[in-house]
């Protein structure tokens, strides 16, 4: 029996990155909301905002710690599974990862300590500063990792040095690498997606409290803040998506063609709302808007859009997968705009708390931005295939030569078990924190008493 290292290594990367990417968008999104909430507290001195901030920090911490734990795996996975890739592009790709450590991770983790444990040790202003630094750190971390990934999508500012086995890409211009053609738009698109995911978590929990008629003051205010953030962010996404599509059309035309199952180069290329595609018969079906893809890409219905037929068959991505994930992401994006708009209108009419059906939808809606972010990344990454660095290095040439298929398989099984366990622990803890809810009264005295009892036990203990 021979196992295929490439398939296993790709499966492992997909497993570890998709599981990891459940968490950072929550941290980035709720991070922004924490900054808003705590700023309101520092400005108004209203204790409701303090309780609110303290509660959401607990939720933030549960997400953050799993994000960090699963993120360490990613930092080293290029070396473990993709050693040839690491040798070939390390001169360029290593730099943003190192910069992420120096500029983002230290900032995040350092100030997180104050965020979680510093309430009684620093003034409210310093605590707010720490919150801002954690939020900034998580966004900067997003920036550097999107820089690294964007370079894989649209590689620039390098030249190839050496020949044969010793050939590798070397950098020619650092800022050219950092701000490669897709960095800015992909970073913005990703971060705004994270804002949506974080806000929907807060919306979901707040809706749950409103349904249960608990923690009314905190739930009402949290709902208002997060709905506004979610709406603004959702409304921005189509604009960003439009700019992004134009960038993809210019630099990764095969990917753009796969997004829409577009085979024949043509003017007045259609845009599919929903449908399917079959690369074997080169046919795409579904509900379409004629000419819309041409307009989206070229601001002109007669703009000519390159089809997949222009590329050799072995340089096509998995067209069906890319098509479906891309369309699912777009559809979910439309849903976010609609549902948050309805929510905001009802808040304005002061009727939200009585609309139980909408609150129920809000409770379950937290799952959708998670899916949308995952789908978006699947279409971006699967759409780049068979290239690991677009047009430069094939994924099949990037593996670790010294790693056997069995070893990859063992580590996949290990990570699967650990991640399934982690997932359930995470859900369990979140559920518990949410059921417990924010503190209504000051519990300081109570906890002191509790610890004194434990301490008494400690003093009488013999060992």
């Amino acid at each position, binding site marked *: 029996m021979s196992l295929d290292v490439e398939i296993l290594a790709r499966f492992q990367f997909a497993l570890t990155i998709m599981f990891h990417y459940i968490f950072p968008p929550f941290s980035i999104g709720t991070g922004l909301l924490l900054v808003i909430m705590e700023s309101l507290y520092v400005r108004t001195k209203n204790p409701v905002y303090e309780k609110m901030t303290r509660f959401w920090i607990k939720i933030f911490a549960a997400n953050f710690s799993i994000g960090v734990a699963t993120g360490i795996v990613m930092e080293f996975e290029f*070396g473990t599974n993709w050693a*040839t890739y690491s040798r070939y592009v390390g001169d360029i790709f290593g730099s943003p990862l190192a*910069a992420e450590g120096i500029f983002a991770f230290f900032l995040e983790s350092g100030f997180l300590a104050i965020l979680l444990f510093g309430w009684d040790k620093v003034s409210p202003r310093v605590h707010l500063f720490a919150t801002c630094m954690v939020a900034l750190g998580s966004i900067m971390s997003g920036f550097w990792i999107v820089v690294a990934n964007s370079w894989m999508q649209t590689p620039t500012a390098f030249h190839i040095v050496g020949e044969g086995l010793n050939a590798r890409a070397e950098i020619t211009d650092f800022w050219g690498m950092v701000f490669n053609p897709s960095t800015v738009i992909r970073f913005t698109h990703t971060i705004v997606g994270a804002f949506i995911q974080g806000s929907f978590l807060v919306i979901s929990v707040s809706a749950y409290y409103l349904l249960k008629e608990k923690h009314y003051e905190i739930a009402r205010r949290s709902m208002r803040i997060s709905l506004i953030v979610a709406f603004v962010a959702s409304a921005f996404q189509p604009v960003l998506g439009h700019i992004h599509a134009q960038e993809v059309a210019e630099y990764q035309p095969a990917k753009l063609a796969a997004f829409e199952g577009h085979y024949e180069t043509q003017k007045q290329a259609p845009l599919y709302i929903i449908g399917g595609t079959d690369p074997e018969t080169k046919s795409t079906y579904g509900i379409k808007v004629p000419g819309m893809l041409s307009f989206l890409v070229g601001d002109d219905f007669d703009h000519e859009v390159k089809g997949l037929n222009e590329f050799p068959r072995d340089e096509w991505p998995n067209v069906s997968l890319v098509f479906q994930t891309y369309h699912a992401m777009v559809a979910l994006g439309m849903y976010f705009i609609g549902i948050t708009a309805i929510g905001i209108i009802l808040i304005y009419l002061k009727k939200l708390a009585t609309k139980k059906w909408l609150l129920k939808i809000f409770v379950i809606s937290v799952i959708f931005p998670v899916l949308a972010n995952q789908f978006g990344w699947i279409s971006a990454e699967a759409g780049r295939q068979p290239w690991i660095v677009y047009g430069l290095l094939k994924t099949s040439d990037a593996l670790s030569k010294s790693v056997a298929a069995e070893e990859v398989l063992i580590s996949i099984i290990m990570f699967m078990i650990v991640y399934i366990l982690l997932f359930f622990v995470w859900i369990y803890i979140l559920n518990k924190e949410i059921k417990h809810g924010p503190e209504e009264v000051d519990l300081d005295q109570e906890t002191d008493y509790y610890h004194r009892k434990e301490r008494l036990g400690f003093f009488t203990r013999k060992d």
Partner: protein
Amino acid sequence: MDYQVAWYLIVGILLIGYAILDGFDLGVGILHLFSKTDHDRRIFLNSIGPVWDGNEVWLITAGGALFAAFPDVYATAFSGFYLPFQILLVALIFRAVALEFRSKEKMKWWRNTWDRAFAIASIIASLLFGIAIGNIVIGMKIGADKEFMGNFFSHLNGYSLLTGVFTVSLFMLHGAVYLMRKTEGELQNLVRKWAFRAFWIFIVFYFVVTAYTLYLKPQMVANFSFGMVQGDFDKHPLIIDNQYLISIVAWLVVILNFLAILNIHRNLVKKNELPAFISSALSIAALISLFALGIFPNLMISSIDPAYSLDIYNASSSLKTLKIMFFVALVGVPFVLSYTIAIYWVFRGKTKLGENSY
């Protein structure tokens, strides 16, 4: 001094920072196994609670720096140590999650399970770091194409297992000394008792490892032997040009390291918490520095042919990348140091349990 040497130093400093800082986290984790009451365990966890996450960032940043400056080492080391490294990652995940979640429930089985996971993960992580260092000292089966040619079991040789256990004892002592500073009263006395035990275990392994290293690999002292010992590989011009200065300084470090180790014991007796911790930290720094000097200018030594070793020249990035990232480090490190110090200052003093504690 060229940029390659500078980056060798930077990666070394990051690893020393990691070993000193996460070393006591791991040590506290190992000692966690011996504590009996829930209160003690919570004090232990909360003594590292605000800082462990930042400490682990030193490892992540060292990984990133290695990737940026020496991509071939990053590729060979992590694909070569494939399974040990995957196990290390799982151990680090368990540590993080156990710490975050163990106090969220009052059930005994819940807390005991996470406590054990935390302690075992800490032991495994320390052991694996030591095994990695041991393998680098005796050399790994690295071929002409810079790829590791051995398998999982070639990592588990006698010497590396010994350095692994030595690292466990080192971190256990370091953790106990750290806990001395963070605890008080009865609990501090208990920790002090452990610290003495850990000290003697550490001393035994320290001598055994030193003797075994000199027996197995006398070349480890070639770089600071006043030119008397010839190593497996050509010495770096910096070493040849300054061999007396480097040798004198290195032997001073050896002696000072020994004095620092004795000083840990002296301060444990006198209950001077901070000097004991500083001595322990300096000792870790000295051990890693001597190791780094011993293998310089190599990062990974090939046991097949010394010519296949990965050194700071055949494994480094282009000069342009090294220059740019040196500037990045120059800009970033002062920030990192300033808020790291600020955070340790905010959380100075004895650990107390409060409503935000784990």
